[in-house]
């Protein structure tokens, strides 16, 4: 359990590299996945989730004012669920539910980017220096990430009664389809443009 909290904390900090601090690629799913996977004792699962979510995230570009799905939070939340260890009956379900759960959290974090940007605007218009405003903005972003990923740890599926068998079948089919959607997104991202 402590490994899950450590993974949530680490992912919350790595997410800052995505747009706000450095932008060295440390927040990309292909990096976050294996890192958290190693921390949680399943590097292969981490790598596979990282690659699939990296490919899916290629379809979400931060151009203009568009706020894409937050791929770092999506990856972290997916791995928290997949490797969260809720017991033998729950763990198979957790693996199936991981990516949809992660994407939902990634989308939620993307939606919360708007109020975060509004807060940054208020911070930078205050007296007290831009340095303090930027530091405050980073702290607010980190706090938001920690709150979201803590919620992911606490709310992760796989505990209690399993859902209807038909939901499990649907999740199995979706899990099979997801890497191929990633493959299509990769090919589409690299298409030649006139």
């Amino acid at each position, binding site marked *: 359990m402590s490994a899950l909290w450590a993974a949530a904390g680490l992912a919350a900090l790595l997410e800052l590299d995505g747009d706000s601090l450095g932008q060295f690629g440390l927040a990309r799913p292909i990096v976050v996945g294996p890192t958290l996977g190693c921390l949680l004792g399943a590097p*292969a699962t981490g790598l596979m989730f990282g690659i699939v979510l*990296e490919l899916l995230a290629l379809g979400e570009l931060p151009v203009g004012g568009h706020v894409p799905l937050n791929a770092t939070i999506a990856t972290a939340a997916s791995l928290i669920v997949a490797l969260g260890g809720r017991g033998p009956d729950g763990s198979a379900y957790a693996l199936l539910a991981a990516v949809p759960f992660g994407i939902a959290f990634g989308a939620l974090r993307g939606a919360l980017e708007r109020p975060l940007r509004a807060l940054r605007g208020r911070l930078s218009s205050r007296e007290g220096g831009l340095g303090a405003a930027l530091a405050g903005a980073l702290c607010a972003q980190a706090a938001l990430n920690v709150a979201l990923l803590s919620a992911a740890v606490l709310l992760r599926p796989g505990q209690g009664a399993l859902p209807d068998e038909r939901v499990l079948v649907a999740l199995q089919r979706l899990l099979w389809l997801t890497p191929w959607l990633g493959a299509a997104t990769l090919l589409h991202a690299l298409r030649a443009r006139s």
Partner: protein
Amino acid sequence: MKALSRRLWLLQAGWDYRLMQGAGFSWALKPALGAERAKRHLEYFNTHPYAAPAIAGMVCKLEEEVVAAPEAERAALIERLHGLKRACASAFAALGDALFWGALRPGCAALALVAEQLTEAVAGAAALGPIEALGIALLYLAAFNRIALATRRKGLALGLESGAALVAKVQEMRVQDEIRQLRGLGMGLAAAGVALMAWNSGPGQRLAALAATAAFWAALRWLPRASTTRLYAASALAALAGAWAGWL
């Protein structure tokens, strides 16, 4: 300039809808220009984050020219500086997006995919331990940052050296040709990666896998307003509907 270079790492820390990167850009310029002149740059500014160092270098060079000019000419030079800054920001935003988000990032993702799928094909999925997993992550980071870090470092130097001639210098570099080459290389890697995925998925599933990929690609290419997230949501709903109806 080292302080400027490091401060540009926080270019987007204060991104908001009014100034966009303006707060981060102004803060980054402070060690080079001083508080008063840096405050003049607390205005709307938005460009590709890896192109910002080149513009910062240009601004520093032009600010030196303002200081060296007679008092009567300064206002006109300052107006020219801000105009050039805005023009470069727009031009480099489009170029940076095409190079880094449109070519380099997917190309590096394709490289990581090929590395992972090759490892799986040759040694089996069980061979993917922590060293292999972190090794592939490092491969991605090395490939991406080789170009990204060089662009930031050399961009700052180029801006400082070129000043107002920055745009002409960048045009000479024929970046569009580089983008086309990167995209071509990336597409080759992507095709290899997808072929390996199909190979690794086993004989009974290859056709279905390739059909699914083609269908998704066609949807992304031709359906208006199609996006990866929307296709994922649609797939989830279709899977649920199919399972509920007993078709799956």
